[in-house]
């Protein structure tokens, strides 16, 4: 799976104006609603489910990265939003460091293998220091898109 297969262009925010985890999650869900990927009526359900999941264990796995997510029965197509917060947010990360890059993933509950493929796509790049630092330096959606395209084409089908 490629990053551009899951990340919705209109749901990329290179300058996410959030100061808390819950605020960041809300803003990214709103992006997916504005992009017509999610239904506005489901807004609170999704936010609540994602925060509940975070409370069971932070998805801030270290290196300034978090992947808040939910698997939902009403979702048929996996999608993701990306927010970059230059100042960093307390995500209760495992290494105690602030989070700068947030990949919020919404997966169909009935397709757990798709969720795992998306996670693989995301972490195969987020685990690389260069990708993380380029993402932090991107100031526009176009710059983020270029980075994602380059990342996708460098994976050589893995």
């Amino acid at each position: 799976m490629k990053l551009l297969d899951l990340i919705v262009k209109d749901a990329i925010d290179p300058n996410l104006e959030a100061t808390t985890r819950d605020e960041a999650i809300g803003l990214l869900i709103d992006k997916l609603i504005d992009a017509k990927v999610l239904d506005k009526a489901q807004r609170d359900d999704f936010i609540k489910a994602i925060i509940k999941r975070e409370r069971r264990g932070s998805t801030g796995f270290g290196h300034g990265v978090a992947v808040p997510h939910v698997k939902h029965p009403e979702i048929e197509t996996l999608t993701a939003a990306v927010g970059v917060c230059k100042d960093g947010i307390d995500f209760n990360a495992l290494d105690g460091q602030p989070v700068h890059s947030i990949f919020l993933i919404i997966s169909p509950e009935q397709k757990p293998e798709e969720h795992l493929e998306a996670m693989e796509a995301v972490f195969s790049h987020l685990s690389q220091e260069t990708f993380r630092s380029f993402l932090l330096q991107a100031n526009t959606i176009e710059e983020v898109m270029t980075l994602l395209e380059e990342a996708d084409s460098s994976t050589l089908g893995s």
Partner: protein
Amino acid sequence: MSNTDSAIVTISNRLGLHARPAMMLAEAAMRYESDVTLQRLDQEKAVDAKSIMQLMMLAAVCGTELKVEAHGSDAAESVAAIQELVKNSFNEDSLDG
């Protein structure tokens, strides 16, 4: 006095090795001094079992076979601990999420 131990395990929970099981596995591996790696039997690359990020890169679905390998003074114990977690489906399947 360095030992090596290994075992083949099969992921058996419906949701596969997603974030929470990956975290449980990394936490288990970190309790041991040994270096512990996991490798899909259908792939060449072994990943560090103490890194959640690397574990997520396995994309191990239900049914995926993995080789657990450990090198170090407590190699056998670390492999046994991971075998136990996988065998017990990470205590999932009754509380999917």
